[in-house]
């Protein structure tokens, strides 16, 4: 047995310096974070980090940037509790604690050469953006690319400029809807499931990647199954309460899986029979 050096503790954090911060919506704030020595985070799209504000605590947050972005990474954090409220008080120059990346991300190798249908609901677009930007950075490795996003209301829309830029590309299809109209809204209104039905897709060649609030999965997956997309080609990212990020504390358990290590990304086939999953 090796010496039990406390430095091997899985709870060791690195100092992450906030390079830029920007309020995106009333609830979400963007942070660009640099690790000591501009070390790369080394994440896969879909993975998360544990971020801490000393004194307030630590929370799991999905990485929103592509692994191809070097020297810094991006998080978009929704203010929902004590730690995220403390994070929202911070700006450029402040320092946070970072450990990770953790978890199983999107299966990028499997997705190569396939048609992609990426569906994001609300803050689910935050982790999905790490995959979208990865795919667009390597556009020739993928088949058709469809991006569908839905938000509760126009004020909740994230990455509007980027979304518009993706839609300008000739080989990318994008569509957006909001559940409720707001002042000046010209776009589509209705649930995100409405955007799926009119799509012409080849189900055998298509992988659907779905990230959104728990309630969205049930209905979106039903729609995808109607489209005859095989269960192991429907990929979801699950949100769970996490404290340790390293498969010990028990909070994120879904049946025998620890969401923090075995997930957060699962295929629908893997979890369809698990109660308490979706």
């Amino acid at each position, binding site marked *: 047995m090796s010496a039990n050096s406390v430095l091997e503790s899985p709870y060791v954090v690195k100092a992450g310096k906030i390079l830029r911060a920007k309020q995106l919506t009333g609830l979400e704030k963007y942070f660009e974070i640099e690790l000591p020595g501009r070390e790369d985070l080394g994440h896969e799209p879909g993975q998360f980090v544990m971020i801490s504000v000393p004194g307030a605590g630590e929370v799991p947050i999905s990485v929103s940037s592509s692994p191809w972005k070097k020297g810094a990474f991006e998080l978009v954090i929704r203010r929902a509790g004590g730690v995220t409220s403390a994070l929202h008080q911070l700006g450029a120059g402040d320092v946070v*604690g970072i450990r990770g990346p953790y978890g199983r991300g999107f299966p990028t190798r499997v997705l190569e050469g396939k048609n992609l249908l990426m569906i994001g609901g609300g803050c689910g677009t935050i982790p999905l953006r790490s995959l979208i930007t990865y795919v667009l950075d390597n556009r020739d490795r993928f088949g058709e690319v469809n991006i569908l996003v839905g938000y509760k209301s126009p004020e909740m829309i994230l990455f509007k400029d980027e979304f518009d830029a993706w839609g300008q590309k000739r080989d990318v299809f994008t569509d957006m809807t909001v559940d409720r109209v707001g002042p000046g809204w010209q776009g589509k209104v209705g649930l995100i499931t409405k955007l799926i039905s009119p799509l012409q897709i080849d189900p055998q060649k298509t992988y659907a990647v779905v990230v959104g609030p728990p309630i969205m999965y049930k209905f979106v997956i039903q729609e995808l199954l109607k489209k005859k997309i095989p269960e192991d080609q429907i990929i979801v990212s699950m949100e769970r309460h996490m404290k340790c990020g390293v498969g010990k504390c028990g909070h994120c358990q879904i049946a025998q899986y620890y969401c923090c290590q075995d997930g957060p990304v699962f295929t629908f086939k893997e979890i369809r029979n698990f109660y308490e999953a979706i």
Partner: protein
Amino acid sequence: MESFYVLKKSDLDRFIRQLSRSRKVVAPVSRGVKNFVFAEVTSAAQISIQSIPTILPPKKYFMPQCEKIQEFNREIHQWNPVVEANGEVVLFGVHTCDLAGIQFLNTVMDVVPRDVNYAVHKQKIVVIGLECNDYCDEYASCRVMKNHLPNGGYDLFLTELKDVFMVHGGSAAGEKIVKEAGIFLKPDAAHKKELEDIRKKKEMIFKDEVNVKREDLRGVFERSVQSDVWENLGGRCVACGNCTNVCPTCYCFDIKDELDLNLKTGCRTRIWDSCQNEEFAKVAGGESFRHNRGQRQRHRFMRKFTYPVGKFSVYACTGCGRCSRTCMAKINLKETINELAGAVK
């Protein structure tokens, strides 16, 4: 090589006194009617040799209820991992059910990334087991879990015979203690016969405590996901979390930050947590994945009888009976298993 020794009962006190001179010795100590706790002792007279399982299992020495894991300084942006290591501890009088519990925790905490805090505590602990020659009480189900007999996990293991304790050496650390003590003798044929007789007698006393065989337990639980039994348990459970706190294989924890009064320095601690609390699986948006008590009871049982079998090929229930003994709502593990088994047949 089988290394057996005997320790005269009259020498037990000398042994405990010797041990406690150089390290902390903890053993079951009586705390009122039918209540025992692992607490520090310096003589044999303080120890309850015949005890039912202690209120808290020995996991509290491997993974303290509240443990500092990090110290931080907000001003200079420093975070230092911490293990608050105590000196050497001898756990004396650990029953076979609790040996199984320790072995289970060793397994899960050793999964990469290893839990260094646990590993450091473990390294400083010597485990001296003690055989139960008879049932502790009606709550135990150690036979069906095959934990009524020793299956390793100790440095020394004692079985009470008529005049002596038969002692089995289970590790180099155990052998070292025997050597240093200088009061352990070699057993004779009569001692070995006596041990054999006790084990034979135990086979008569200890019978499967539930109507399910050990190898079928997993299947019973897997087929019981939708059982009404959970709803019934949920109706009675008060979500106090006693069952998980006293369980020798429950290790879930919460992590919390505490800031010192200077508002600059502070520490991060981990604290035992319970899946029976509603907040346990709740996410920041308010969604809870086990919002009713029946689901949470089901989760607790599944974490003993199905999930660990898939992951580690072992049941996480040791049969110690603590969860049933402590439950204010009288939720009983043996009854629950029988009800589930009856329903799925």
